[in-house]
């Protein structure tokens, strides 16, 4: 199953990465080689094998429903690109 330029553009769109035509062609060539390597994996029969999501069979810990974080709003806002009155500024999305 060969990767197409439309596949690359669709993935770029889903990943919110701007990509122009010449870049798409270049990326297609490289991803084509990488998926060539990945195809080898797909030929192996894995019927009856449980997927392994994680290195240890851990279960998510539960914790008491208590406030543990301090309010560090100003500190965290200080590293944001644009902030006003404690709010993150982005281009208008609702007219």
């Amino acid at each position, binding site marked *: 199953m060969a990767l197409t330029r439309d596949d690359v553009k669709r993935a770029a769109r889903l990943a919110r990465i701007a990509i122009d035509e010449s870049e798409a062609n270049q990326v297609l060539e490289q991803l084509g*080689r990488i*998926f060539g*390597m990945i195809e080898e994996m797909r030929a192996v029969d*894995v019927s009856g094998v449980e997927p*392994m999501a994680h*290195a240890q069979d851990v279960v998510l810990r539960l914790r008491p429903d208590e406030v543990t974080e301090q309010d560090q709003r100003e500190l965290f806002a200080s590293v944001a690109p644009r902030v006003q009155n404690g709010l993150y500024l*982005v281009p208008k999305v609702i007219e």
Partner: protein
Amino acid sequence: MMHESTVKSLSDALAAHELSSLEATELFLGRIRTLNARYNCFISVDEERSRAQAREADRARAAGRATALTGVPLAQKDIFCAKGWLTTCGSKMLSNFVSPYDAHVVERLNAAGAVILGKTNMDEFAMGSSNETSWYGPVRNPWGTEAVPGGSSGGSAAAVAARLAPGATGTDTGGSIRQPAALSGICGLKPTYGVCSRYGMIAFASSLDQAGPMAKSAEDLALLLNAMAGFDARDSTSLERPAEDYTRDLRQALAGLRIGLPKEFFAEGVQPEVAKAVDAAIAEYEALGCKVVEVALSNMRLSVPVYYVLASAEASSNLARFDGVRYGYRASEYRDLEQMYERTRAEGFGAEVKRRILIGTYVLSHGYYDAYYIHAQKLRRLIAQDFTRAFENCDVIMGPTSPTTAFRIAEKASDPVQMYLSDIYTIAVNLAGLPGMSIPCGFDARGLPIGLQIIGNYFGEAQMLNVAHQYQLATDWHLRAPPGVV
């Protein structure tokens, strides 16, 4: 010479009041000032901040509150958030990010009294095996400045090799501690997944990422891991286990130890000088009373494709947070929110990071999820089961860390698949979640170092460190310094 000190010898000298932390810190800061331009190991240095920490360490010692690491200066990989420090992860995306908080590993090392010398260069978001994907330029290998130091923890590895720091932190998702340790002629340990907290360690592939120490000797790795490891409720995958002293078994004799040799580690593709040096190391272990048994890791050849599906999938999800809203880089020109995201990410990420995000997005997208992602997770189990079976017949597994010694800068940069194969011996260990380490075991004809990989069973760190330490008592590869750095 003081800059040749190990973490252990510095620790002893500090304890004996032979020098102060401020003196030790000044010495390494001075070396960084003179030599960093040659190797490009550090992204940030903040001398005043380091000195303040050193003075604090000296005060703590005077007040009788010293640990083994109090006053020892160390380099931190720039993937670890450190409060007040520029923390870039090797990316333009975070080129303006001064961290408002400490990673758990940093918090622990600070609490132990260690001094941060600076933040080390790395492949962008830890995606790379050569340090060439850093937005801050490539790191040069101290054993030959035309060669790469390995990656992604290449700045940490080169800093230790060039004696700009006695020890450093690293992270390893597919080999990023072990491969640069091998290529730069130092020691590095990736612990069992879950031993060190991932809190504040900028995420690449969360089910594989693990922090670990890099230094000149196994004994130093044990001292550093003692401070780095520990439970942290803020990382849901951090393991709740009693604290260990990783130095406890260093002095045990190795007689009777069973070493598993997977034939897959000595197949075609390995540089003959690497195979020869690893064979010689195994012979040294036999002389120390170890027994060699053959083991099979028959699914190992699948680890590279499996890794590039799983790690890229996890990366595409983790790196979605870099959108130019709450921190980091934001594109300067955009007409709406959509374009702000797309341009910020197009301009802020480098080519390799974008490639991996696109692979990950593709394999997770509708219609491909089962064929790639779930399929790879099933193969991950088969790869892990190979190790479980192998460890029924041996105590540790050994082989080369990397199929070749350090390659030239730009040699593999245009061929991602060739670059990925540089991690063929290390990736399976991350997929299984096992601990692995690399120690120096020789040199090739060009004088570039060769690494021996030691893989342990789950939570086998103390035993692996014992195995490495006994070799280092019998050999001196780990004491060799690159020509021109001393």
